[in-house]
């Protein structure tokens, strides 16, 4: 017998013996479906009127005949027609299978069960699951007969009826699974239910409950927020009191694990409560929600985790700070405490509140293993883009360009965004930081922003610098920046940068500090009572034995409880937690012992998997772990699920991918420590090999694993590459770290060239960091390496000598100057010797350096020699036809003329230098702005203020264009001076608005120039007789000057601002 299958739940599908059937005409198709779904014959007149309502009877009947032919042509013998009626054959050679019939049959099966309709048994679940599986979409999705309004109405009615039936089925499935504590499928069905009817408040209610029971408190609260939003937007009504109370219960952590089955026969019809949710439901008269029966979940699921105990004061303080941030006063909060003290838990509280109120929340975490520069910042930026917090339309391209530098993965989203123009390293870094602040301002513009950076003790130096910058510049941003760190780690040498950052934040009063201490004995009692949902059995003796070992560390306490549960020393019976005799209970003596005792009870395969995962870090992805252990997919999934069940691992979603994470950083640390050195090394090697294949650009992680694996060559390669990358994004501490690692890996026998290169790079990084006393000896070592290499080009030596001379010029401390003066002199002598009779860019640069720096070195500079260096450099640069080197040499000559008071000569040189910026090879905008400013300044000094102004205006414009603050400040200062000299007081005062806008953001760096501005502004007000305004400005200037110089007014030697 042939089989004809008709699927109408979703898009229309017809199959005849497994082959698709096509009916050409849409009316014929509609007719066929109508006959199949109704299942009965219909009068021809009725069908004609249904499908062709606009036609007269004769035409309609003709059309009907044509449609019948069309159906018969596609599916022979399926139509049964006579002069009066038309139907489908249900017997004969073709068996018609219709998905709607099957859907109804499956729903009917569970209705025939003997149990109450509200109950969902195992068979019910099976048939319901099959039924909803048939429902691919709405009835005849995508099919319409617009000119057949009768058919259209019928289709709509069918669709709505079936949809209601589906909702009923989904609701029962959600309930059935939640009864069994199978929360994941329950949540899936509830979500589908809600998707069908987003305004169904009971669906929201149910989903909130399921999330809460599944331990996804934040998701539960978010669901409530979504419910409120939808009801308000679509219906303009608030949620029902029951929903609000459920929200309150979840928010206040009063929704506890459920322990009484609502549908057990003994319970039916009684008033017996079913956990706190049941109380809520009963109190609000909401009884239709089923409370699940705890049958199939583990004992560990019974303990109530993640509740905030003993931190009420701190939570209130955070709320206050959040309130301030929301009102537009940016706040920084630093939460410290030992591992396991509950920092993350406390922060989660404010995260939840922020999310429920539809505020933006961004979280970044620092890890101990192979952090890329700005790793937590990159995480924050990526999350914002993934979650759509950014309106890309309003983020300027120059901001996006720097965001891409922080988070290179964004590049794929913004292929068209060009990098920002290059600047001097320090200035460029400041611009990057400024653009990050601008981005935070944009994200927090309309919606307050909560940024959480966790585990700052593992942060890289670049992240610390950026956070410090942000803290200084977020006073008017609706932003609460919360930073957590272990104060127990900051005494370690590696954490000195963090220590400096904390001291600075404290000194500048930029942050609120909060230290979490251990719980008291009473608070530990409270924690145990919360975990176990009862204080029955928590005797003083039991409490003391736990408190003695854990000393009030919440994570340790929780781990001890879990260990005791897994050992069977704590067990659940008769509705309560009970424990064995106290004598038989051995409390682990450290948190690590507690963790290990738990891990060691797991099957060996799971333990192996966890140790391997621990080598990958706190967070890892499935594919890496799978490749590393060569596991089959199903096996690994099962093992990961096992580890999840015992609450050692959790799932985290990142960029739409599921990753796994240890629930606490102490767990992977403990597991790694438990490995023998050799085994750990081998695992790192496996990790490195896998990651090298999967993510070859993960340089920092690869350097970390190859180093730990003892893979010298690869470790060297990746350390060096990681250092270069760090340097490129001004993460100097990280560059230093990687270069030092690379250097350590090099042995004496290595080719000197490699060591020389690494040493020079190391010296450069030290110099960029301002650590000149470290840079000079490193350059000297690099010179020595060159000495060992017979292929050395003499210009390489010249370059290193120049760097020594330039670095020396930046030394501030007299003792350092004394210490390195011999090195400097030696470099001058050697450098000059090497460039004799040579025309080379390096030679010109060396001469320029000598011209620039020579005047600082001597108490009575030899001007003749210094000017000679400059002139020789100029001549050489001209021969080399290098506009950039020539501009630099001319700049050195300008400095010399200024020192010598040759102001007019200086103007001549300035004009010559200015002519170079029009050369197409001169593409450094920052330098162009500098040259314009310095030309303007040279003119101003000889009283040519009117001629200076156009140059200064252009410099200001370029500064704005390249987002570099220094040229803007300098240009404005000089413009102010020009206007003042020209007695153009109104214009002088008009600069104030621009200046103040810059001052607001950069007050710390530019205090001198702001001070100057206030002085000039005060003068203008005085000359106008505006005494009060003049006094205000003068006081500002004096205060800043005093702060800057650290001396009272009378001690100012030069008094340059008393103009």
């Amino acid at each position, binding site marked *: 017998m042939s089989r004809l299958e008709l699927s109408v739940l979703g898009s229309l599908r017809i199959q005849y013996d497994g082959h698709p059937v096509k009916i050409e005409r849409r009316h014929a198709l509609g007719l066929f479906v109508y006959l199949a779904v109704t299942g009965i014959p219909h009068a021809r007149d009725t069908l004609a009127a249904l499908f062709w309502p606009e036609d007269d009877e004769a035409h309609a009947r003709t059309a009907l005949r044509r449609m019948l032919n069309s159906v018969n042509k596609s599916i022979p013998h399926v139509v049964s027609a006579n002069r009066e009626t038309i139907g489908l054959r249900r017997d004969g050679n073709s068996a018609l299978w219709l998905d709607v019939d099957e859907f109804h049959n499956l729903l009917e099966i569970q209705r025939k069960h003997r149990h109450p309709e509200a109950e969902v048994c195992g068979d019910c679940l099976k048939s319901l699951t099959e039924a909803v599986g048939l429902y691919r979409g709405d009835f005849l999705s995508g099919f319409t007969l617009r000119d057949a309004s009768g058919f259209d109405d019928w289709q709509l009615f069918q669709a709505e009826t079936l949809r209601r039936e589906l909702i009923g089925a989904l609701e029962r499935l959600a309930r059935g699974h939640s009864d069994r504590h199978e929360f994941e499928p329950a949540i899936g069905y509830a979500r589908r239910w809600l998707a069908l009817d987003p305004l169904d408040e009971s669906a929201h209610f149910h989903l909130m409950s399921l999330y809460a029971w599944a331990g996804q408190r934040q998701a539960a609260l978010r669901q409530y927020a979504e419910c409120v939003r939808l009801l308000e937007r679509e219906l303009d009504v608030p949620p029902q009191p029951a929903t609000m109370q459920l929200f309150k219960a979840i928010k206040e952590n009063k929704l506890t694990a459920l322990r009484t089955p609502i549908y057990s026969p003994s319970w039916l019809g009684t008033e017996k409560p079913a956990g706190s949710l049941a109380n809520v439901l009963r109190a609000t008269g909401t009884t239709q929600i089923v409370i699940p029966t705890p049958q199939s979940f583990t004992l560990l699921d019974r303990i109530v985790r993640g509740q905030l105990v003993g931190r009420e004061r701190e939570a209130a303080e955070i709320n206050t700070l959040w309130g301030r941030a929301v009102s537009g006063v940016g706040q920084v909060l630093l939460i410290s405490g030992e591992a396991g003290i509950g920092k993350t838990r406390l922060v989660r509280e404010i995260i939840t509140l922020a999310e429920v109120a539809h505020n933006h929340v961004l979280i970044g975490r620092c890890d101990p293993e192979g952090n890329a520069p700005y790793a937590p910042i990159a995480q924050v930026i990526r999350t914002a883009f993934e979650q759509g917090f950014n309106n890309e339309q309003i983020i300027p391209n120059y901001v996006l360009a720097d965001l891409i530098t922080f988070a290179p993965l964004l590049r794929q989203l913004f292929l068209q965004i060009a990098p920002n123009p290059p600047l001097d390293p320090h200035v460029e870094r400041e611009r990057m930081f400024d653009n990050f602040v601008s981005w935070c301002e944009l994200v927090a513009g309309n919606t307050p922003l909560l940024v959480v950076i966790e585990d700052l003790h593992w942060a890289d130096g670049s992240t610390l610098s950026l956070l410090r910058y942000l803290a200084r510049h977020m006073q008017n941003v609706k932003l609460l920046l919360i930073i957590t760190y272990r104060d127990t780690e900051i005494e370690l040498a590696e954490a000195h940068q963090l220590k400096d950052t904390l001291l600075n934040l404290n000194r500048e009063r930029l942050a609120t500090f909060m230290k979490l201490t251990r719980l008291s004995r009473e608070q530990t009692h409270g924690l145990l009572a919360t975990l176990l949902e009862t204080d029955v059995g928590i005797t003083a003796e039991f409490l003391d034995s736990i408190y003695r070992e854990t000393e009030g560390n919440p994570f340790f306490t929780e781990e001890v409880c879990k260990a005791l549960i897994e050992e069977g020393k704590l067990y659940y019976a008769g509705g309560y937690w009970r424990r064995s005799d106290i004598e038989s209970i051995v409390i682990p003596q450290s948190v690590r012992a507690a963790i290990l005792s738990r891990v060691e009870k797991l099957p060996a395969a799971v333990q192996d998997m966890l140790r391997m995962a621990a080598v990958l870090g706190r967070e890892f992805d499935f594919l890496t772990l799978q490749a590393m252990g060569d596991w089959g997919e199903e096996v690994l999934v099962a093992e990961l699920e096992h580890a999840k069940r015992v609450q050692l691992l959790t799932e985290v979603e990142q960029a739409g991918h599921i990753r796994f994470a240890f629930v606490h950083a102490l767990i992977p640390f403990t597991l790694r420590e438990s490995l023998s050195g050799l085994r750990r090394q081998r695992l790192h090697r496996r990790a490195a090999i896998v990651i090298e294949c999967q993510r070859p650009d993960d340089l920092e992680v690869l350097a970390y694993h190859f180093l730990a694996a003892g893979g010298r060559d690869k470790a060297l390669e990746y350390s060096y590459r990681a250092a270069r990358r760090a340097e490129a994004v001004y993460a100097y501490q990280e560059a230093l770290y990687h270069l030092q690692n690379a250097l350590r890996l090099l042995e004496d026998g290595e080719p000197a060239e490699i060591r020389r290169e690494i040493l020079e790079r190391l010296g450069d990084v030290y110099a960029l960091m301002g650590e000149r006393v470290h840079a000079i000896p490193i350059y000297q070592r690099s010179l020595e390496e060159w000495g060992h290499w017979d292929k050395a080009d003499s210009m390489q030596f010249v370059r290193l000598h120049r760097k020594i001379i330039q670095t020396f010029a930046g030394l501030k401390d007299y003792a350092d100057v004394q210490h390195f003066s011999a090195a400097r002199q030696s470099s001058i002598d050697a450098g000059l010797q090497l460039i004799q009779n040579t025309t080379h860019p390096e030679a010109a640069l060396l001469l320029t350096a000598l011209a620039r720096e020579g005047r600082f070195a001597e108490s009575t500079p030899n001007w003749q020699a210094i000017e000679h260096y400059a002139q020789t450099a100029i001549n050489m640069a001209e021969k080399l036809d290098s506009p950039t080197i020539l501009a630099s040499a001319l700049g050195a000559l300008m400095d010399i003329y200024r020192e010598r008071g040759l102001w007019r000569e200086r103007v001549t040189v300035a004009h010559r230098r200015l002519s170079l910026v029009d050369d197409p090879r001169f593409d450094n905008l920052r330098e162009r702005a500098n040259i314009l400013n310095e030309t303007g300044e040279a003119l101003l000094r*000889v009283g040519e203020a009117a001629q200076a102004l156009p140059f200064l205006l252009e410099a200001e414009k370029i500064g704005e264009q390249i987002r570099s603050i220094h040229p803007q400040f300098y240009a404005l200062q000089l413009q102010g001076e020009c206007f003042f000299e020209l*007695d153009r007081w109104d214009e002088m005062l008009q600069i104030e608005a621009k200046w103040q806008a810059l001052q607001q953001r950069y007050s710390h760096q530019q205090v001198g120039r702001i001070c100057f501005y206030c002085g000039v502004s005060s003068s203008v007000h005085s000359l106008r007789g505006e005494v009060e305004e003049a006094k205000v400005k003068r006081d500002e200037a004096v205060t800043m000057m005093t702060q800057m110089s650290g001396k009272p007014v009378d001690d100012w030697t*030069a008094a340059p601002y*008393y103009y």
Partner: protein
Amino acid sequence: MLQAEGEFALVTQYMERALQSPLWFWGKFNLYALLIDTAAQQRDLEALRQYIVPAEESALQNDHRLYLGVAYRSKGIMYRLMSDYQDAELWLTKALEIFEKLETRWQIGRTFYELGELARLQDNTTAAYSYYSKALANFEALGAAPDANRTRTALDRLNITPQ
């Protein structure tokens, strides 16, 4: 700032200290200009005699027109204080020429005022009236209220009814 506030003694004190400092960056002609201008405003003949030559020389050396104008005006005031009215007028007029070329209104106003003072001392009230009036126009245009008031007082003292 102090000069604008009329704290001339302090200005002199600071500038003289700066003159001795090797740290002073921007050239001594800057300091000399300020010193002689302050001395002129204080009518301090001794200070003017002390600083006028280096001020004029350094301004000339660098062709700094503004400071040269300041030096010439100060020189004019110096001669006036020495009762050499002819030279006084000569240097004040030279200063005025420079300031008019530079279009620096406050300096122009101040020079007209000094020319007015000179004319008044010579009992040429008509010329004094004319100079004061021109000074006042410049001060008023700039909103330099204290200078404008001072000039109005000087005009009142002439006791001339405007035509």
